[in-house]
Structure formats: C-alpha cells, structure tokens
C-alpha cells in the first residue's frame, strides 16, 4: 500500500492524516510486530534497537526537563510532553484543530496532575513534583507508542516536531495575538505573582485571591504552551533557562521579568533557529536540539553558581 503523503515533516501533514490512514498504519504496525516475533534474532537489531534509541531520546528531551523545572518555576509551565501527547492524540486521530487539541491536552494533564497531587486537600511541592514526573512519564510512553505504531515515512517528521522544529512554522499573527493577550493578562496579575513567590499563606494575608490566581495561571500557561507547541513543536529549555537568566539580570519583580523573559525567549529561539538552519546547511536541524544543547550547560552553570535559585 502506497501512502499518499510522502513526507510528514510538516505539522500540517500530521493534522491532515485521516482516520483511514491511521487504521492502515495500525494494521501495518501489527503485522510488523508479528513478523518481528517470528524472526526472533534476525530483525532484533534492525527494528528494536532504533526504537529503543528513539524512546531514550524522548525520555531525555521531555520528561526530564519536567524534573528539573518543576521545583523552581510555577509548575504550570512544564507541560510540553502533555501538550505533545494531547496534540498527537487528538489532532491525529480526530483531525480537528491542532491548537485546540494541544490546549485541551495541556488542561487535561494539568487537571490530572493537580487533581492527583491534591489528595487530602493540600499539596506539597514534593508530591506535585512526583505526580508531574509520573504523569509526564506516562504521556511520554504514550507518545512513544504512537511513534511505534506510525508508518516509517512519518517518523522523521514526528520526531522533529517532538524535538521542536521551527522550519515549518506558519503565519505567526494568530499565535502572536495569543502571546500578547497572554502577556497582558499575566502582567495584570504580576504583583500578585510577586506575592505568590513568598508562599501562598503570605500572598493570601496580603490580599491575593490565591485560588483564583492559580486557576488563571494554569489556564494561561496551558493556552500559551499550546500556542507555542503547535507552532514550533516542543522546544525544550527556552522556558527553563531564559527566565532564570533574566532573573539574574533584573531580579525577581514579575512586572519586569514577564515582558523581559518574553523578549529574551524569542531572541534565543531566533538565534538557535538561525544556527539550526545554517550550521550544517543545506540540511536543517530541529531547533529544539540546539536550544537543549545551549540550555543544558547554561542551566547547569546557573545551578552550580547559585544553588539557592532552585532549592531555597
């Protein structure tokens, strides 16, 4: 069976896959698994090993930045693996708007994490962290499962998208409007965010409506992450490293930090994307790989330099 779409490097192609195609892909994968089982040793090296590498890739790039991020950042930002899952699951199978699917996926994951972590009515940082890691691991495996079931021609595109790939980003107006609206809304609550960094108790005594503030933040973070992920895939480390860098330069006032981190994040991504397009031209790299390559050492340096940033 010849598959219509030749390459799925474009996110739009992922969106366009029709259910018919998915069924074909599934049966193809099933068939392949059967063949694999039959010829035990022969195909082990050729199919299983690359798949393991792929899974390792995913776990390195996605659930892990979850672990590092969560204690320091408002937890709401760490949802790109969930986003990816939401986008792939809903967007691929049902074929409705990818952006909406990612948003729904992010909200669902957020609801799941905070719902489960809450338990007896109060959640602790540790419990939140663990729940987040576990749910992220679950989503990561679901993404890996979908990759295993996907036809080989699509794998490259899916992988690139999962690593963050700006090469296919389309008209930015819609996403830009969401970003501006989100930034304005965040700035509206900026001083209350400052309060929240001193702990929910102090924030509440100083007049912040902590419950409502959290709801707004979770919603906003889901929306913004969905907008970002559907444009350029799940680019890692921009959201992790940039706010910390800006924080070192400007201090902790969210009224400055929010717009500054937005600009600096965009600048870093532009820089990384320029490199991704030119380093081994004419071939392009996924930009997420470069941001991670820059992000990991920078973040480790920051951690080593000021341990309190993360653990105070």
């Amino acid at each position, binding site marked *: 069976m010849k598959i219509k779409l030749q390459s799925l490097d474009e996110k739009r192609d992922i969106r366009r896959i029709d259910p018919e195609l998915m069924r074909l892909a599934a049966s193809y994968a099933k068939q392949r698994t059967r063949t694999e089982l039959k010829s035990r040793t022969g195909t082990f090296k050729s199919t299983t090993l690359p798949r393991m590498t792929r899974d390792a890739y995913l776990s390195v790039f996605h659930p892990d930045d979850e672990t590092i991020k969560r204690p*320091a950042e408002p937890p709401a930002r760490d949802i790109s693996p969930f986003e990816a899952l939401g986008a792939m699951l809903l967007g691929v199978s049902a074929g409705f708007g990818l952006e909406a699917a990612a948003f729904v996926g992010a909200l669902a994951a957020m609801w799941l994490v905070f719902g489960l972590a809450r338990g007896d009515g109060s959640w602790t940082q540790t419990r939140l962290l663990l729940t987040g890691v576990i749910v992220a691991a679950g989503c990561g495996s679901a993404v890996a499962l979908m990759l295993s079931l996907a036809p080989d021609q699509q794998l490259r595109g899916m992988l690139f998208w999962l690593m963050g790939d700006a090469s296919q980003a389309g008209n930015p107006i819609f996403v830009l409007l969401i970003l501006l609206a989100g930034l304005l809304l965040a700035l*509206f609550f900026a*001083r*209350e965010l*400052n*309060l929240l*960094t*001193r*702990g929910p*108790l*102090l924030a*509440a*005594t*100083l*007049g*912040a*409506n902590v419950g409502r503030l959290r709801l707004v933040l979770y919603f906003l973070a889901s929306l913004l992450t969905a907008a970002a992920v559907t444009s350029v895939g799940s680019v890692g480390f921009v959201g992790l490293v940039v706010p910390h860098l800006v*924080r070192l330069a400007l*201090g*902790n*006032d969210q*009224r400055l930090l929010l717009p500054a981190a937005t600009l600096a994040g965009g600048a870093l991504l532009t820089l990384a994307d320029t490199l991704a397009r030119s380093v081994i031209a004419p071939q392009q790299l996924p930009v997420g790989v470069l941001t991670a390559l820059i992000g990991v050492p920078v973040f480790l340096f920051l951690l080593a330099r*000021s341990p*309190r*940033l993360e653990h*105070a």
Partner: protein
Amino acid sequence: MRTIKRKSVRTAHPAETALLNARNLAVSIGGKQVVRGLNLALQPGDRLVLLGRNGVGKTTLLHTLAGLRAPDSGEIELSGQTYAALGPRRAAQLRGLLPQHQGDAFAASVLETVLIGRHPHLSRWDWESTADEHLAREALAAVGLAELAARSIHTLSGGERQRVALATLLVQAPKLYLLDEPLAHLDLNHQIAVLELASRRAREGNAALAMVLHDVNLAAHFSDQALLLHGEGEHELGASAAVLDAARLSRLYGHPLREIRDETRRWFVPVMPK
C-alpha cells in the same frame, strides 16, 4: 467551659465597633477540636495573647481569625463586616498576619521584601511610590535593620529574617495584628523590642494585637487579655492579670510552675526536676 468576664469599661461598647468580633466560634483541624463556643471581641488598643501546648491549634485559630480558613461554625467580623463581605483586598488593609515560617523562594533584596507589604494599598497597575519606599525604610529602621536594606534576603540570619517579616507587616499597617510566634529566632533584646514595638502600634495606632507566645512572663507583661487553649476545644479567656496564675499555667503546660512576686510584678518559673 469557664470564661472569665473582663471587667473593663470597653465591654460597654456595642460589639459592632470592635475591630475583631468572633461569636460562638468552633474551630477544628484534622478531627481535633481547637475551640468550641469562643466569643472574642478585640477593641482598638487591646492586646491578646494565645497560650497553649504545641499542636493544640494556636496557629489554626490565628489563621481562622485572619479569615484564611473557615471556622466549623460561628461568625467572625472585622470592623463589623464578615471576611466574605470585605473581600481579600479590603481585609488585607484591615488585618495582617506574621506567619510562623518565612518562605522566600527566590532571591530578593530586603527592601523589596518589605515593600511587598504595601500590596493591599496599591491599585493594580501602580508601582510602589517613593512614599512607600520611605515607609519601608522607616519600618526597617524600627526593627533595627536599616543598614541591611540592600542586602539579599538569603544572606540574613533567622532572627534577621523574622524582623524583616515584622517590618513587612508594619508597612502593611493593618488595624489588627495577628502575630504567630513573633519572637521566634530572636535574641532577648530583640524579643523585648519587638513586643514594645507591637504594643506601641496598638496604643498609638489604635490597633489590636493577637499573638501566640511561648514565654508566659513576656505574655503576662505585654498583654491585656489571655486565651488559654487546653485542648479538646476547652478554653479560658479573660484579663491576663486574672487568668494567668500558677495553677492554670501548670495545668496548661502539664508542668508545675511557681509564682514569684515582688512589689510590682510577678514571675512564673517552672519547678526544676531534682
């Protein structure tokens, strides 16, 4: 339940003028009763001390009075209005809480930390003005930390951070001060200074104090009313001079205390094991 009536002219005032008015309050946490049937009114200038063993629910009661958690039953009014009617912002202008633990997740300067206290007095898009900064520097001077304004909060000692938290509360300038262990981590001189500062605020600023203390002698000296929490919801409330005696305190802490007097003052000292 024994409740000793205060013999004070203030009780003649109608209850509506009270800064804090709690009626028939029942509070519990995790199935444990903290108080039952508590009636408490604090007028401007009043200083109330909460005493009780560890884990009896002093902090829980203080948080309930601050409107941060709902009581099981009963009503709490701040200047004649419930917390629900006031809303969080107006409530924050009227009452302030010194929390038991200071959490500062991210680095900030001491001055920035203190300026946070102005939040309820600023409108949404306002930035802190020079007047606010002036207030913050005054508050820092009042707690003896004027020189540390530019330092990072993370470089301070436990006692210094406690005083920064107190300065934050001072710039919030509420009418009702709820202090949860204000003397934690403080040296003796700072303990007295903090209690004097709070008493002065109550006297001159027409504010009321409710504070959790562990030192019964400081409690006896710096309070007008005392609320003893005996556990199981049992409490005693009354004028400090009447409620604080060796028998009650011995029962409260489960350890014998003796009273020592001179002409003007009395002290409670624990009986030391042989």
